[in-house]
């Protein structure tokens, strides 16, 4: 399992936007969950099933393009 920590997610709508963008980019069968885990600090986590390095980098780009989100790891 791979987790990406994302900053600037401030509500559930952000989680839904990120999920939508990832699903449209081909990750529909690889996403486990997208959750806002730390609302106070606007941080969420995207959990994937196993991804290779290319897929991870592509996912990061999709997330960052979806809005003013920053992948922290």
């Amino acid at each position, binding site marked *: 399992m791979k987790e990406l*920590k994302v900053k600037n997610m*401030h*509500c*559930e*709508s*952000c989680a*839904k*936007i990120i999920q*939508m963008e990832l699903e449209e980019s081909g990750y529909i069968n690889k996403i486990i969950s997208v*959750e*806002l*885990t*730390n*609302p*106070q*600090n606007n941080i969420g986590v995207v959990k994937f099933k196993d991804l290779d390095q290319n897929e991870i980098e592509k996912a990061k780009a999709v997330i960052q393009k979806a*809005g003013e989100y920053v992948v922290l790891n």
Partner: protein
Amino acid sequence: MNFEKKDISETTYYVQGMHCASCEVLIEKKMLKQKGVKTVEASTKKGELRVEFAGKKLRTNELNQIFKGDHYSFSTEPIIGEESKLFKYDSDGKLLINQDKLSNLLYILGISLLLIIGYILLSNSGLSSLITVNSTSSLPAFFIFGLLAGVSSCAALVGGIVLSMSKQWSEIYGSNDSFGNRIQPNILFNIGRLLSFLILGGVLGSIGKLFNLSLAFTSILTIAVSVMMLALALQMLGVKAFQKFQVTTPKFISRYVANEDNFKGRYMPFMMGALTFFLPCGFTITAQGLALTSGNIMTGALIMFFFALGTLPMLALIGISATEFTKRPHLSAKFLKIAGVLVFFFALYNINAQLNVLGLSSFSDLSTNVSKKQDTQISDNSDLPEIVDGKQVLKIVATSSGYTPNYLKVRAGIPVRWEIEDKGTSGCTNAIISNSLFEGQIALTPGETSVKEFTPEKPGKYKFSCWMGMVSGVIEVISSEGSSNAITINSDSNEVVPSGAKGCGCGGGGSCGGTQN
């Protein structure tokens, strides 16, 4: 596919449930995927969605189906629903009353009023006078003492904090999370509270009289916390100016306390629970005083631990109620509003009590019909006390709910002998203070009469109260010139217990929650 201009139509929908820019983005993205949608513009501020359709328009029930699960609802008419204003003017200038919102408001006010009245009745019921404790009381006695505290002043202060934090804590876990996860902030709050009472109770027992917080300090601290509670209450009541108010520890503290990634914001409830040791209600100060006078680290620790354990059921009930109500979306909005009213009341209640302790004007003055210390004219002397053996004799009865009478008059410059019959005080009412008239406090013992002698020098109105300021009264000192109606009697009465207002070195409270050893 090209469309002629005549095939393009614009429709405006009214949307409920949008609260931020992300909502706008989410709606726009989803709409752009729908067949026939050319352009989309969502506005949270206006609550509107403008859509250009190339072809067939979407009906509102189709939109509601598309966005089912996203908690948005669509209409072609301005929505007068839960989130709209109570009063609104339609396009003809006619006043419209939002019936849904009005009935919700009445429901919220009604429930809040019932709970507040219930709390006041319980506090004044005299239940708290059923049990008194001293430093040799058994640990179960302190547990019961804590149970009583949990349904009176502790509920107002600590319970108020739990309620006011419920909204923030519910955001840590989504409403779909398990009960075990959602209750974690409350569990951590109570664990923090129990541990701090145990450890700091031991500290009190070991250092005894060296540990002395002034009454003024605890009063000011309680006022500061109550002001914070007011801000949180206004947030819960939906006042826009307070929507961004958050209670957090400063970054430089949180960084050292815990790695935030690991705790995910959970450390804060634990710390808040631990810090409630420094926000004592009257019962807590009594227990702290007894822990101090125990002079033993283990005894002090166990006294405070069992007391805190006694407050746990009520605090846990408040916490669980808050957790369960916030889980149910259709109830959480109402619960937050009711909680907001209760927190607002508790905050004002606490502030009023501390203003009494500090001797300042407060809402209590409305019932005793006084103002701040001021010069008075010579008034009607018919209600001045008798002078016995050269002293003005005042007599009152003190109970857990107040003093009878609570408005007294004396002459300036003539010694006063104040006899206070205790007919059932407990908690903070086991002592009387009046910083403007005399130093220290008058310790009271149920079933006995305490005496305080002092000489008021300056005319004015002086407040006296229990040391938590929950109940109060006034002594009006008038100029002795022209008081020719004084009656002087000699008496040899020796039947009263002298007051022992030495102060025990505890946090402003008395060492005597009950009978002396």
